[in-house]
């Protein structure tokens, strides 16, 4: 194991985050604040409590997940796409570093960034609503696993993409709709029957539901299923990455 290499990849990626700290932090903080003003205060004041939770409070886990998912993907995909784009990948390929070490470095850094971001968003949310977390340990568990899973997913996208358009297309066309339709801002019990069933095919529902349960002990699906889905997603990403590693997919001819 080339630990030194993992360390330098990790810190190099974190340095990139650090250099763009203002925009990395400012944009999620501003968008969270906007959501709170619009949905939480303005519209939310007209919406009755959902399962005993005020609307402003109810959307906190969904909002956090929205940022975590999109940021994990964009950080991790950009992290590995950029060296491919500029050509600096040659160094990574010629270094005594295995694919897994590269993966740990890049995905670890992307997940760390998302985790920092989630903390900032929760802290911002706490300024608007009085946040009480029922199961902090579970909350952290869901958060960390989601950060890792979606950073892995982002890494896959970064390897797959060979232009900027491809890099953007999955987050934009798939992830954002899934998050919005996955019960981030509503409980699926508010939907008509048919749409409730359709929503069950949306993997993001399980993430948001489990995460929300750790805050308020209310959920759309049972916590066990949520947890299972998170691990399933992790397993799928790891399997895809293992396949990419074996075949040298798009990294190496």
């Amino acid at each position, binding site marked *: 194991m*080339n630990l*030194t*290499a993992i*360390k*330098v*990849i990790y810190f*190099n990626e974190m*340095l*990139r985050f650090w*250099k763009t700290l203002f925009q990395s932090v400012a944009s999620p903080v501003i968008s969270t604040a906007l959501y709170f003003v619009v949905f939480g205060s303005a519209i939310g004041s007209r919406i009755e409590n959902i399962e005993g939770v005020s609307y402003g409070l109810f959307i906190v886990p969904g909002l956090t997940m929205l940022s975590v998912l999109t940021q994990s993907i964009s950080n991790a995909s950009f992290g590995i796409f*950029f*060296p491919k784009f*500029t*050509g*600096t990948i*040659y*160094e*990574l*390929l*010629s*270094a*005594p*570093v295995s694919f897994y070490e590269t993966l740990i470095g890049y995905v670890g850094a992307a997940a760390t960034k998302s985790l920092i971001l989630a903390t900032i968003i929760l802290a911002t949310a706490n300024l608007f609503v009085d946040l009480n977390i029922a199961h902090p340990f579970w909350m952290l568990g869901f958060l960390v696993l989601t950060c890792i899973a979606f950073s892995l997913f982002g890494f896959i996208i970064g390897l797959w993409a060979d232009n900027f358009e491809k890099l953007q297309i999955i987050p934009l066309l798939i992830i954002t709709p899934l998050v919005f339709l996955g019960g981030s801002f509503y409980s699926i019990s508010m939907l008509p029957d048919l749409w409730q069933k359709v929503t069950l095919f949306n993997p993001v529902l399980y993430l948001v539901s489990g995460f929300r349960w750790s805050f308020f002990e209310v959920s759309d699906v049972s916590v066990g299923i949520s947890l299972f889905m998170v691990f399933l997603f992790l397993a799928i990403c790891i399997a895809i990455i293992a396949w990419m590693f074996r075949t*040298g997919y798009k990294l*190496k*001819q």
Partner: protein
Amino acid sequence: MDSIISIKGLSKTYNSGFEALKTVDLEINRGEILALLGPNGAGKTTLISSICGIISPSSGSVTVDGFDIISDFRKTRSMIGLVPQELTLGAFDTVWGTVRFSRGLFGAKRDDAYLEQLLKDLSLFDKKDSEIRALSGGMKRRVLIAKALSHEPKVLFLDEPTAGVDVELRKDMWKIVNKLRNQGVTIILTTHYIEEAEEIAERVGVISNGELLLVEKKDELMESLGKKQLLIDLKESVKKIPSILEKYNIELNEEGTQISYTYVVKDETADVSEVLHEITNSGLLLKDLKVEQSSLEDIFVDLVKEEL
């Protein structure tokens, strides 16, 4: 000679179907400077990329210091430094940051004193905190060299090191190459500039169309393939070569003031003294004479032409 890199039956066909290397066998000696000479697209970079791990060879094997480049990739790659052809660098990294990154990536322990000296040798030390995007092309090339040397490799690959490089950097680069060689580092450089190979290499390999046409000591190559030309200025111009000289490979220039005799040094049938003797017998009056040797470039052009 003790070989450090041993290449056996290496070939590479890209996914596109392009056969970039056709069964290359090559032994690279420990501590030598080997120049791989060939036109653009000959397969030089593919050969280097295979050894360094950037592309996977289609068949064949390569060992570095006895270790296989695939099963023992950690050992082989940590021994190798590569300076790529393109100026590929992260624009926003600082010089110091990127050099330290490279050292760590290759698994070497942090050694700031070594890196400082390295940057000083490459006249980069006063730029160490600059971002790479602020550097000139020549400076970027120096940074690439620094990165390649950051983990103290035993083998250094320089892929077209002087493409687009000014005279000063070129001189500096050869200074560094010499210093490294004195430290026992094996250096392999690719180039399509013949002068470069002629200037610093000990052995020259010629690649064309994915095949290694030959590998020889530079001097021997020049000797065995090198043609010499004996040029003789005449005191009085003549209209044609005297008949007794017709059996030799002798030509007369247009003005009739100079004759030239072309011969291959190693060729047993060539007898300079006999030719000179016959020239004197022919009654020609000699004004001056000189011998010209063909350059590596002429040899190279001939070789590649034969191949085509």
